C-alpha cells in the first residue's frame, strides 16, 4: 500500500536535492548554510518519526537558528537568460503547458478513477491521502516526461528546484512552524483563556450583537493563530453554542458553517497564515512581503459583512 510515509520519503529526497543544488551554486557565499537548512528539512521528512519529540524540537531550533541569524543566502542564479527562454518558448510553443498540467491532471483524474472504481478496495493507496499521493506520482511522471522530451542537462531538475527553493528560502517552513506554535498555544491553554475572555464580554438581549461578537471573535482569533481551525472550537464553546444556538435558538448548521467562513476572512488578513500570504509574496518575488495580505483586506472586509448578514438572516430570521 502506498502511504503518506512513502510520500514523505519522496519529499525528503526532493528537499535533499535542494541542498545539493545549493552546494553546486558557487556564486552563493552562504551556500553551506543553505545546504544545511535543506538537509535538516530532508532529515525531518525521512526520520521525523524516529527522532522523538525532543529530537524534533532540536531540529526545529537548528532550522530557526540558520534562518534567524541570517546565515542563509538568497542568491538564486538563473540557468538561462530571458532571451534564451523566449527562444525556447517559441520553439516548444504551447506544448510547454502539458508537463505542468500533468501534475494536476494526475491528481484530478487519478482521484476520480480511484474513488469511483474497484481500485478503492484494492488497497493500493491509503484512502485518506489519495490526492496527495497522486500529486507525488504526477511530479514523477512530469519529471520523466520533461527529461525525455526536453533533454535538459542531467542535473537540471536538481538545480532548478533548488533555485526556486532558495528564492523562497526559510518561508517554506514558516507554515509548518506556525502549526507547531499552535500546538504550543494549545498546550499552554491559550484557547481556553481567550474563550473565557470572549464569553465574559457577551451582552444579554441583542441577538445581532452576539452574532457580531461571534464573527469578529472568529476573525480576531484566526488572525492570531493564522488558522480558523484553531479558533472554531474555542469560539463555538464560548459563544456559538451557549449563546447563539442554545439561548437564542439559532440554526446550528448556519452558525457552524458560516462561523468558520467568517474566520476565513481573518485568514485573508493575517501574515500568520504564511502559506497563503507570505510564501506567495516570496514565490512571486514581491518587494513587500506583506503585499498579498494588503490587497486581500479590501476583499475580506466586505466579505465579512456578507458573512455576518448571512449568519444573522439565515441563522435567525429565515
Amino acid at each position: 500500500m502506498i502511504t503518506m510515509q512513502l510520500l514523505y520519503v519522496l519529499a525528503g529526497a526532493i528537499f535533499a536535492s535542494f541542498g545539493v543544488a545549493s552546494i553546486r551554486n558557487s556564486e552563493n557565499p552562504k551556500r553551506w548554510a543553505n545546504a544545511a537548512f535543506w538537509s535538516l528539512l530532508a532529515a525531518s521528512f525521512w526520520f521525523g518519526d524516529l527522532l522523538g519529540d525532543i529530537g524534533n524540537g532540536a531540529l526545529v531550533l537548528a532550522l530557526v537558528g540558520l534562518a534567524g541569524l541570517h546565515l542563509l543566502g538568497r542568491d538564486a542564479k538563473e540557468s538561462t537568460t530571458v532571451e534564451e527562454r523566449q527562444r525556447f518558448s517559441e520553439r516548444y510553443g504551447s506544448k510547454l503547458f502539458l508537463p505542468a498540467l500533468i501534475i494536476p491532471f494526475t491528481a484530478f483524474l487519478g482521484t476520480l478513477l480511484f474513488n469511483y472504481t474497484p481500485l478503492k478496495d484494492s488497497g493500493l493507496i491509503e484512502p485518506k491521502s489519495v490526492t496527495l499521493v497522486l500529486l507525488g506520482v504526477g511530479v514523477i511522471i512530469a519529471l520523466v516526461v520533461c527529461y525525455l522530451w526536453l533533454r535538459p542537462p542531467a542535473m537540471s531538475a536538481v538545480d532548478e528546484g533548488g533555485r526556486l527553493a532558495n528564492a523562497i528560502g526559510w518561508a517554506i517552513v514558516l507554515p509548518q512552524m506556525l502549526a507547531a506554535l499552535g500546538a504550543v498555544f494549545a498546550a499552554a491553554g491559550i484557547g481556553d483563556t481567550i474563550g473565557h475572555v470572549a464569553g465574559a464580554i457577551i451582552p444579554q438581549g441583542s441577538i445581532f450583537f452576539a452574532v457580531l461578537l461571534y464573527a469578529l471573535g472568529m476573525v480576531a482569533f484566526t488572525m492570531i493563530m493564522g488558522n480558523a481551525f484553531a479558533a472554531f472550537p474555542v469560539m463555538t464553546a464560548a459563544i456559538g453554542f451557549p449563546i447563539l444556538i442554545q439561548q437564542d435558538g439559532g440554526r446550528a448548521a448556519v452558525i457552524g458553517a458560516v462561523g468558520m467562513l467568517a474566520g476565513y476572512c481573518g485568514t485573508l488578513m493575517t501574515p500568520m497564515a504564511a502559506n497563503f500570504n507570505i510564501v506567495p509574496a516570496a514565490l512571486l518575488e514581491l518587494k513587500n512581503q506583506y503585499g498579498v495580505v494588503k490587497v486581500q483586506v479590501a476583499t475580506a472586509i466586505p466579505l465579512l459583512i456578507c458573512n455576518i448578514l448571512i449568519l444573522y438572516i439565515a441563522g435567525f430570521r429565515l
Partner: protein
Amino acid sequence: MTNYWPLLGIALVVLGFALRFNPLLVVAVAAIVTGLLGHMPFLKVLGVLGHGFNENRIVTLIYIVLPVIGLLERYGLQQQARSLISRMRGATVGRVLILYLAFRQIFAALGLTSVAGQAQTVRPLVAPMALAAAEKEHGALDEDTAEHVKAMSAATDNVGLFYGEDIFIAISSILLIQGALKAFGIELTPFELSVWAIPSAICAFLIQSTRLLLLDRQLKRRSQ
C-alpha cells in the same frame, strides 16, 4: 484562577512581525515564552514544538512540485504563458483572473484543493498571464502596478480556495465543524453544513470579481 500570562506569547508574535524580525525566529521565541509562562518546563515546550512540527509536515509537502516548475521555467514556461495571453483578443487582467477564480472555486468545491495553488499554478501560469494581459491594456507596467497585479493573482487563488472548499462535504473543515458541534450534542450531516457554504461562496465570487473589474478600469484609465 485563569493564568493570563501565556497571552504575552501572542503579543510577542504581533510585535515581532510588526518589527519585521525573521518570522521563524519570532515564532520560535513566542512558542518558548508561551510555554514557560504556561508553567511548562523547557524540555516539555521543546517536545511539544517538535511534535507539532513533525505532525504537520504535510503542510510543507506541496514544494515537491518545485523541480518540475523550475525545469519548465528554464525552457520558457512563463514566456509561453505570457504570449498565449497577448495573442488572445479581449483578454484583460480582470477577465483572466475572474476565469481563474471560477475555476478555482469549482474545483475546490469538488474537493480538488491541491490541483491548483500558489506554487503549482499561480507562479508559473496565472501571474505571468495576468501580467501579460495588463501589459496589453496598459503598455509596459511600472513596478508598483506589476507588484499589484501579481499580488492580486495570489489573492484570487486564496479567495477561490477558501470560499470553494467548504462546499465539498469531505473537507477537513466541515468535519471539524461537525465534530465540534457533536461535542455539544448537536448531530449534523456534512451535507447540512456544506450547503450553507454556498451563499458565502457566491458573495466571495461577486466581491473579488468586482474588484478585478475595477482593476481593469483603473488600468484602462491610466493608459489613456
